[in-house]
């Protein structure tokens, strides 16, 4: 299938280690921030979201941290597995009337080595 993100920043992590993927966002008025995973030839897959009034949210093996002071979002993946290899995008919503529109960041490729 076709490649997603030919020239994206790449993070290489050994299987079993924790991964941290970072994202800087631009709109301080966004209501929600979301992380998506995209494998080659597939559409983005919803991972986890965080509302703007929170600073941390945990899911299954994933944690999202939001630092509004510096407009920074991170995704932590615990015990990274080969199946986690993909391109990861952060996305932000608008505010009130534009809440439904998602604006995506540039993406980070995660490579899991054995």
């Amino acid at each position, binding site marked *: 299938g076709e490649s997603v993100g030919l020239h994206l920043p790449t993070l290489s992590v050994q299987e079993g280690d924790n991964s941290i993927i970072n994202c800087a966002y631009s709109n301080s008025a966004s209501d929600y921030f979301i992380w998506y995973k995209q494998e080659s030839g597939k*559409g983005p897959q919803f991972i986890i979201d965080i509302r703007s009034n929170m600073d941390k949210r945990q899911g299954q093996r994933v944690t999202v941290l939001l630092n509004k002071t510096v407009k920074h979002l991170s995704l932590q993946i615990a015990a990274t597995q080969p199946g986690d290899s993909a391109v990861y995008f952060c996305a932000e919503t608008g505010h009130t009337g534009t809440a439904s529109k*998602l*604006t995506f*960041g540039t993406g980070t490729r995660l490579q899991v080595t054995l």
Partner: protein
Amino acid sequence: GAGVSQSPRYKVAKRGQDVALRCDPISGHVSLFWYQQALGQGPEFLTYFQNEAQLDKSGLPSDRFFAERPEGSVSTLKIQRTQQEDSAVYLCASSPPYKDYEQYFGPGTRLTVT
């Protein structure tokens, strides 16, 4: 359950031809979104429907792009007189009621204009 489906998965069009891309959202999802993804980049918003109403079409790049969702379910994105710069993956997403930020994507249609 079934996810968002899109057809065709691949479309090759000669410059100047019209194309129609179809999206079947998840059952019960009232909101539907179209995005365009160029190679190596994140998806970019095109347009948004709530049921049959097109509430935001600010991302459509030109008047050659037209989207419809006449019965509030299946949606079609039509591109008239295709140009080479229209080559991209076209993604459709739908979201549950009251959760427009939680968007679930289909596999996309890769359009190549020759």
